[in-house]
Each structure stands twice: as structure tokens, then as C-alpha cells.
């Protein structure tokens, strides 16, 4: 029995095989995006709910406010999606972002660098922080939770040390605040920061689904040992991925400092949980191997919309976190049901 004869001898499966050829892949992709749309169902429900609850909610200005609010956390969440897909975690993104903001102040105000140089240096500084995380995780073998927890504390401390515990203002480069705030749509307050967020979403989505970095992120998260055995230099790619996440942290630092027209040396603590929550709400698994950028964006928007909407309808503040908690539970539970049925 030669393989060829085997091939021709069976009818059903061969036909099925060729049927799987062109159509089904496309069909699967279509079904995939339909599912993604369904994943957005909670978001849509939330938006519809608030639209009925308050006339101030579904206005161009407020929707832009939501996007603006989602921008910084969203960008952090984008970067950290890669890390989480490898099965890692990055707790340093919050204070790391603050640290990057302070460094922007150092570059632009203390050292008087030109705007472009300061911004570029800040983003690269974020990458440096990511690289250090990467070294700790993939070269020294420290568990990601600890490696990035250490970095979280170090970044928080150094932000204070370097800034002298005072905010740094961008007095010499007033254009700095335009990076986030400049309105790019006449008539509407549509800030450039949101546009940058959108660009980063597209970039992250392409990186994750269409490039080798993304492919290896999935592969490492799915089975790190097997990936290494397949001849992939896992150590190097983990370094790359943490560094990549650091780039997003640097950018978030620029945007947040730009938004506040100042480098605030405090805060950032807790932001990492928010960003990770956005990622996980979006269906990315902390076990690694599974995840999507669309999901993360939906997760970030769910969080931002909820917070905004509850404020818009003037829910007492102490009830707001209860409401957010409950809605997150319900949204993720429904998403689970949907996935399980699919």
C-alpha cells in the first residue's frame, strides 16, 4: 500500500481535505471576526445602556473623552499583551511609565534637548527598562512576577529620586503637550494622542498576527520548552518581547506626561493591574499562548467606558467600584460561555 494509493483509496477525507483548501480557511477567519464582534457585545451593551441613562453620554465630545481616557492604559495594555501571551507578566508598566515621564522631563527640561530627541530618548528609555526586565526574566531566569515587581519598585523609587520628588514642567518645550493634546479634527476635540493610540493598535495587531515576534510569542506561551527544542532562540525572543513592551511603556510615558503637561513622579501604582485587567478581559490567557490585540482594545474600552459612564450618570463614587467589579465579572463570564459554546 503506497501513500499514493492510500490517498486515492479514500474518498471522504480527501474531499474534505481539499474542501478545507480555500473556502474554509476564509470561512474560519470570517467566523473568527464575527466572534470578535460578539466579544465586543458587552462593550456594546454598556454603551447602549449609558446612552439611554444619560443624554451626556453618547455625544462626540464624551466619546472622545472615553478614548482619551483609554489611551494611556490602552497603550500599556497593548505592549503587555505580548508579554502575557508568552506566559509572562509585567507589573512594572505602571511605575515604569511614570519613570519614563520623569525621564522626558529630564531630557527636555533639565538637559534642554530638542523635542524630537527627548521624545525618542524617552521611548527608548522605556525599551531599556523592558530590556532589563527581559534580561532578568530570560537570562537570569527570575520569575516574571518577581522580576517585574522588582522593577516596579525600583522605577517608583528612581522617579522620585531623579525628579527630586517634584513634578517637572515642560516650560522650555511647550509644544510637548501637543503630542497628546493637539486637536487634529477641526471642530471636535479629537486629540492627537488618540490618533497615536489607533496607530499603535494597528501596529500591535500586525506585529502580533503577521510577524515572527508575534508568532514566537504565541509559541513560547504555548510550550516554551518545545519552542526551544524547535531551534528557536527563546531567550533572545523573550528579551525582544519584553523590550517591545518597554517601547509601549515609553510611549505611554510620553503621552501621559504630555497630557499632564508635566512629569509627575508619583502614581502609576495600580495602573499595571488595570492594564493587565484590560488584557485578560479581552480574552488573553495569563497561562500564555492565547490572546489578541482586538481583545485587549475591547477590554481597555470596556474599562474606560464603564468608568466614564458611571461618572456621567453620577453614581456615588463608592458604588462605582462595586459596579465596575460586577460588570467585569459578568462580561468575562458571558465571554466564557460564548467561547465554550463555539
Amino acid at each position: 500500500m503506497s501513500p499514493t494509493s492510500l490517498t486515492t483509496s479514500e474518498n471522504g477525507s480527501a474531499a474534505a481535505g481539499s474542501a478545507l483548501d480555500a473556502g474554509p480557511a476564509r470561512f474560519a477567519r470570517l467566523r473568527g471576526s464575527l466572534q470578535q464582534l460578539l466579544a465586543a457585545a458587552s462593550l456594546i451593551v454598556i454603551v447602549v445602556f449609558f446612552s439611554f441613562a444619560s443624554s451626556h453620554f453618547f455625544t462626540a465630545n464624551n466619546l472622545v473623552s472615553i478614548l482619551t481616557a483609554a489611551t494611556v492604559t490602552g497603550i500599556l495594555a497593548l505592549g503587555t499583551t505580548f508579554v502575557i501571551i508568552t506566559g509572562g507578566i509585567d507589573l512594572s508598566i505602571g511605575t515604569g511609565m511614570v519613570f519614563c515621564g520623569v525621564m522626558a522631563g529630564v531630557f527636555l527640561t533639565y538637559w534642554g534637548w530638542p523635542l524630537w530627541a527627548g521624545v525618542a530618548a524617552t521611548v527608548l528609555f522605556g525599551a531599556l527598562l523592558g530590556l532589563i526586565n527581559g534580561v532578568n526574566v530570560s537570562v537570569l531566569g527570575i520569575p516574571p512576577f518577581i522580576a517585574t515587581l522588582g522593577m516596579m519598585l525600583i522605577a517608583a523609587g528612581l522617579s522620585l529620586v531623579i525628579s527630586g520628588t517634584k513634578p517637572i514642567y515642560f516650560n522650555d518645550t511647550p509644544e510637548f503637550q501637543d503630542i497628546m493634546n493637539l486637536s487634529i479634527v477641526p471642530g471636535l476635540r479629537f486629540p492627537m494622542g488618540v490618533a497615536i493610540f489607533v496607530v499603535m493598535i494597528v501596529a500591535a495587531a500586525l506585529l502580533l498576527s503577521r510577524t515572527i515576534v508575534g508568532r514566537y510569542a504565541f509559541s513560547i506561551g504555548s510550550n516554551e520548552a518545545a519552542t526551544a527544542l524547535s531551534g528557536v532562540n527563546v531567550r533572545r525572543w523573550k528579551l525582544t518581547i519584553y523590550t517591545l513592551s518597554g517601547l509601549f511603556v515609553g510611549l505611554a510615558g510620553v503621552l501621559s506626561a504630555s497630557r499632564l503637561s508635566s512629569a509627575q513622579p508619583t502614581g502609576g501604582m495600580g495602573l499595571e493591574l488595570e492594564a493587565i485587567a484590560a488584557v485578560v478581559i479581552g480574552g488573553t490567557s495569563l497561562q500564555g499562548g492565547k490572546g489578541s490585540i482586538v481583545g485587549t482594545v475591547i477590554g481597555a474600552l470596556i474599562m474606560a467606558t464603564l468608568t466614564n459612564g458611571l461618572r456621567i450618570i453620577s453614581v456615588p463614587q463608592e458604588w462605582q467600584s462595586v459596579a465596575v467589579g460586577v460588570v467585569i465579572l459578568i462580561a468575562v463570564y458571558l465571554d466564557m460561555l460564548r467561547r465554550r459554546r463555539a
Partner: protein
Amino acid sequence: MSAVAATPLLELDGVSKGFPGVQALDDVRLDLRHGEVLALVGENGAGKSTLMKLLAGIHTPDAGTFRLNGRELAIEGPRHAQELGISIIHQEFNLMPDLTVAQNIFIGRERRSAGVFLDDRALNRRARDLFDHLGLALDPAEPVSRLTVARQQMVEIAKALSFDAKVLIMDEPTAALNDAEVDVLFELIDRFRSPETGVIYISHRMEELSRISDRITVLRDGRYIDTLDTAATDQREVISLMVGRELGGEQRPAPVPSGAEPVLSVRGLSTKHLLRDVGFDVHAGEILGFAGLMGAGRTEVARAIVGADRRESGVITVHGREADIRNPADAARLGIGYLSEDRKHLGVLLERSVRENVVLASLRDYVGALGFVRGGRIEATGQEYVRKLRIKTPSTGQLVRNLSGGNQQKVVIAKWLAKDCDVLIFDEPTRGIDVGAKEEIYVLLRELADQGKAVVMISSELPEVLRLANRIAVMAEGRLTAVLDNADATQEIVMDHATRFSAEGTLL
């Protein structure tokens, strides 16, 4: 023959490798000639996989020299091994469950369009070409997590063959395959074989050796014993070199007179995707074998019975009482144990000790008066089964991860032997177990049955089913096509029933 052919393709000499508490390899040598298939055999824990892992660059040897085409070299890592033309199918799968079949096969060798972007469509096309070439029916775009163990094995094979390899190492590639698939594999090996290449083939299925190998190298307890010409030897000699003794002859069991009511009775069992109206009885003292092609649904029957998968319909009766089984815990409470075919994912706790694994299913029996577990008795049970099944391990505290594949399998078997079940469903229980130990396990199963237990044994090795089962249930396409008395069964008859419906298998 040219001078090239005179120097072996691959030569290992004086190779040693130790782990804490274990000398896995001790001064081992081996040579692989051009164009040959060299079988590597030995008992569980003899050091076969360890030797191959040295070749794959996963472990570094404590001592020894490696020569490829006469050139001495050190293998620095998996990538280096690939570059040297050494391609390996590991005993334990090394697949990324969340990636698709095609992505798995070409991992690390992705081509990029415009220098940046991956093209999954092209990747799938490449994979499909490969499958066409190899005669495999796999969907390149399917996530590996959805594949059965056997299909995963086919992916591993396809992956290994997709390299432009000179030395192909296969560590028990047929452990999860049934006869038809084994045929295809051998076909593939034959086609791979050329004057530039060679194959090292590890297996515990002795009957395969004469079909595929040119020479046989035997290891025992980490030491080199001998190399034989396949043509000039027979199974008996190989086995005695491996285990150092003669094995008892084969006899086939007769049906047990089905006296009273069955212990386990299944009626009208259906599941959403596969099973259609499966019904059978198992009696006390009986071993019921399940035969069928890959994907016939034997595993699914077992999983549905113990409540690991959802049943669409069906009634399960235990000792005459209708049972409401929703999950494996319910099944266990009713005295039904299920040994899964997927050892690594559904069988062992890799990071826990041998003894913890052994008592996992029966842990409640070890709780003392104050609610504390009795460590001494657990240790005693661990040692009992290490002895009974000859599990090769320095202590019962060893992590299961550090055991050889066959010894891990023995641990899983021990887990169910240690629990007092009325019904034992064993799915591919002897997967990766050496010939000697297999016989011992058969004896144990027989003893269990003789003690009045009902045993269901699912196996892809037909000779094993014929050797052991009182009756044989044959499945095809999710349906039960026959239940035969052992006396009425031959390989041909069983195969005939197994192919009743044109099953969609792994093969085209």
C-alpha cells in the same frame, strides 16, 4: 561502495551521562551506517531517550565522542543539531498546542514576505504540499490542541521529515499508532532512506524490528550490550539480550462465562460529534478489549462513560443500578477508574513525586483518624508499586518528570492499581512499555480480572488485544461494529469490522 560509505554516517563512542542518583548512560557506543535503519532497543529506563537527547543537543554528555561522517564534533544545542542534519521525533511530543499544524511544523523556519510579514496562507500551502507528499490527511490550519494523540504523533513525524535531515531519529513513533498508520510510517521511512541518510529507530514493538530495521543495537541499564544484524537474529534473542531472561509464551484467553449481571453496562451511548448508540456489557472477571482505527471513538467512549465528556444520550448501569455520572469524581465514587491515553497531559503530575502520583486516585484511603494523611503508608504503597512494576527510579520521592517515558507510564498504571476499583478502563495502558514489563502488566491485569474486577482495555496494538481480552469490541466511526469472542477473532476479522465505515483517519 565508496570510501564515504565505509565511514559510518554517525558514530558515538564512550558516551556517559549521569543524573542525580542515576547513571543513565555508561560508556555507550553506537554506529549508524549510511542508508540503514538502526533499531535501538532496551528496557524502560535503559537510556535510549537520553542517548538521543544527547544527539539532539538537549543534554550535554559527561564523556564521549560524536562523529558525523567521520568528523568529530560537539553538538551545542537543538538548533545546532538541526543544522548538522539531525532531526528527531521525541518520545514526548514537543508541540505548541495553541499554534496550528502548519505553524508547528515550520516553527523557526518561517518565510517572510517583504522582509517583515508572515504569510500563513503560504505556510499552509507548504504544509499541504508536505502532507500530499507524505500521504497524510492533516488540516494545516487546525490548532494542534484539537488533535488526538495519534494525530499529534503524525504532526511530529511530518515535522521531522520536513527537515532536510541526514540522520532521522525516531523515539517510539508508533507508540500511539495503530497498524495502518504504522504501515504508512514505514513507507515514509523507506522513502527517506538513501545512501546519504540513516535512521535510528526506537521501539518496544518487537515485531516491527524485522520489518523495518537492518541492525539492532541493544542497551541495558545504560550500557551497550550488543549490535545484531536483523536478518541473522530473532525476537527471542533480542528480548533476552534486553531483559536478560526468557519471557513466558503467549496464550490466548477464553471468554469468561458471563454469569450474573454485568458490572458495567452501557446502552445507547451517543455524543454530539462522534458516538452513535454504543452499547456493551462488561462482566466481573472479564477483560473486554476495544479495537478500532484511530479516531474510531474508543477513547471517546471511555471519556463519556466516566463523565469527562458530555453525553448526548445513553444509560450507564453499574452493578445493575443506573448511575448518574457527571464527572470523573462521580465515576470514581462508583468504582470506575479511567486511565487516559494522554500520559503527559491527562495522566501524570510531572512535577510531583512518584509516590504522590501513585496514591493520587486513592488518597482518601490514606487519611488517618485526625484527618492527617499518613506519609508512612503512602511511602510504603509507593515502594510496593515501584517493586511490583519495576519502576526504575532512585526513590519514590523522585519527580516523575525525571523518569523515562515507559516508567512514567508504569506510574500511571500503578495509580489505578493502587485504587480499589470495580471497573478499570485502561486506554492504551502499555504505551511505551517494554516487552518484559508488558508481559508483567498483562499478568497483573489478568490477576485483577480473576479477583472479580471488570477490565476494559483499549489498545491500538491488535496482538495485545488478542493476547489479553476475553471478548473484543470493535469500533468504527463512533459505532460499535462487533463484539467478538476471543476464539472467533483474528487480525483479519477485527480489521474487517474496524473498517466498516470509511473512517476519516490520519491517512489519506
